[in-house]
């Protein structure tokens, strides 16, 4: 999703190739022989895997405004830090919570996810400086990195029966989430929560080896 949004922001024409879950096409295996994962951006026959790396590539190549990454090296470093935090620490914790089957497990896994959101709320306050997005007036790297987790966040709230984004505890992020999902570059890219919930159930069934229908 992230490269998709970035391309939309830059108004770059692209061809979207849907991969079927459960089987990998020849093109995917050729383009990303190392990880065999999506997303992969193929620009003039050059493949680039890893969503945040792709977003940076898009920003550097199509350097006309609007800029996705900050121009100041320090702001840039902060963006990279929170984007990496979201990807490497917070999202795996969220996934762990979502796939937890037992209540006891859920209780234990809830803590780090919520702590992470509180940190992101603070980061939002500092980075946005009162504006609409982490990136200021425009969508930036952290918006894309964390924003694309919103679908799974909503699924986790539903499946694990926890409230993660809260008007009282994380008011900044609640409003930010609405703005992000409503943005022109994002609308149409974000999957519907119901569809994700169904997909999540299929994934969980595959993980546990259980039949999808009981």
């Amino acid at each position, binding site marked *: 999703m992230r490269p998709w949004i970035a391309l939309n922001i830059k108004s770059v024409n692209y061809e979207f190739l849907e991969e079927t879950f459960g089987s990998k096409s020849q093109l995917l295996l050729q383009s990303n022989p*190392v990880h065999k994962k999506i997303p992969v951006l193929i620009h003039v026959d050059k493949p*680039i895997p*890893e969503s945040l*790396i792709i977003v940076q590539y898009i920003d550097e190549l199509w350097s006309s405004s609007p800029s996705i990454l900050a121009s100041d*090296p*320090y702001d840039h470093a902060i963006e*990279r830090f929170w984007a990496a935090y979201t990807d490497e620490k917070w999202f795996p914790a969220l996934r762990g919570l979502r796939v937890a089957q037992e209540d006891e497990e859920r209780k234990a896994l809830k803590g780090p996810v919520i702590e992470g959101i509180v940190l992101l709320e603070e980061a939002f306050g500092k980075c946005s400086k009162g504006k609409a997005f982490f990136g200021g007036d425009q969508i930036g790297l952290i918006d894309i990195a964390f924003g694309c987790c919103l679908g799974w966040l909503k699924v986790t709230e539903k499946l694990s029966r926890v409230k993660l984004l809260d008007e009282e505890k994380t008011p900044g992020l609640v409003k930010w989430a609405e703005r992000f999902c409503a943005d022109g570059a994002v609308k149409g890219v974000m999957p519907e929560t119901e569809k994700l919930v169904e997909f999540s159930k299929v994934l969980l069934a595959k993980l546990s080896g259980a039949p999808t229908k009981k």
Partner: protein
Amino acid sequence: MANQEVKLLSLWVSRFGRRVEWALKLKGVDYEYIEEDIFNKSSLLLELNPVTQKVPVLVHDGKVILESLIILEYIDETWKQNPLLPQDPYERAQARFWAKFAEEKVMDVAWTAFCSLGEEKEKAEKLAIEAVEKIEEVIKGKKFFGGESIGYLDIALGWIAHWLPIWEEVASVHIVDPIKFPATTAWVKNFLNHGVIKDNLPERERMLVYFHQYRKTLSSIPHP
């Protein structure tokens, strides 16, 4: 009094901290080095990095930058001489990709091998070797990952040249076989011989003691 105050908090044996030092030295940037005892964290570290409480931490003109690979990019963007990342966006994406790959598939896995025994150790060793096969393809035919001169990816992978051989010796793992990986082995020699690098490596003997001691304290390893 320097106009731009640069401070680095790190640990003498940290492979992450050395990346930052190599980058600063390659750029000719002066900095104050502050040794941190990570087993007894200072109030300075906790103040500068409350989120992860880890080193290295770079402080530049009062601004705090965390995470070694992020610090490398910050350094490259702030001090433009001797660029570390390539200019071309595609080459940059490649460098970033391989740095991330090596971090996850070589370093984390090799560290697991170092910290474990028996089947778990063998499994990790095997996975690490598979990952190095990919690195071998990237370095083939090149003096450095950066081409003729050291760049971002050389710095990111520099731990392979000096820390990995120590782990291999201490834990009896065998990952970078010179016969299987001639290009990587040649790169290790080139890297260690580089003027800036060779004067900026933690002492081998001291590292051996440190990692032997570290391994002993792991609960999974039985004491003799």
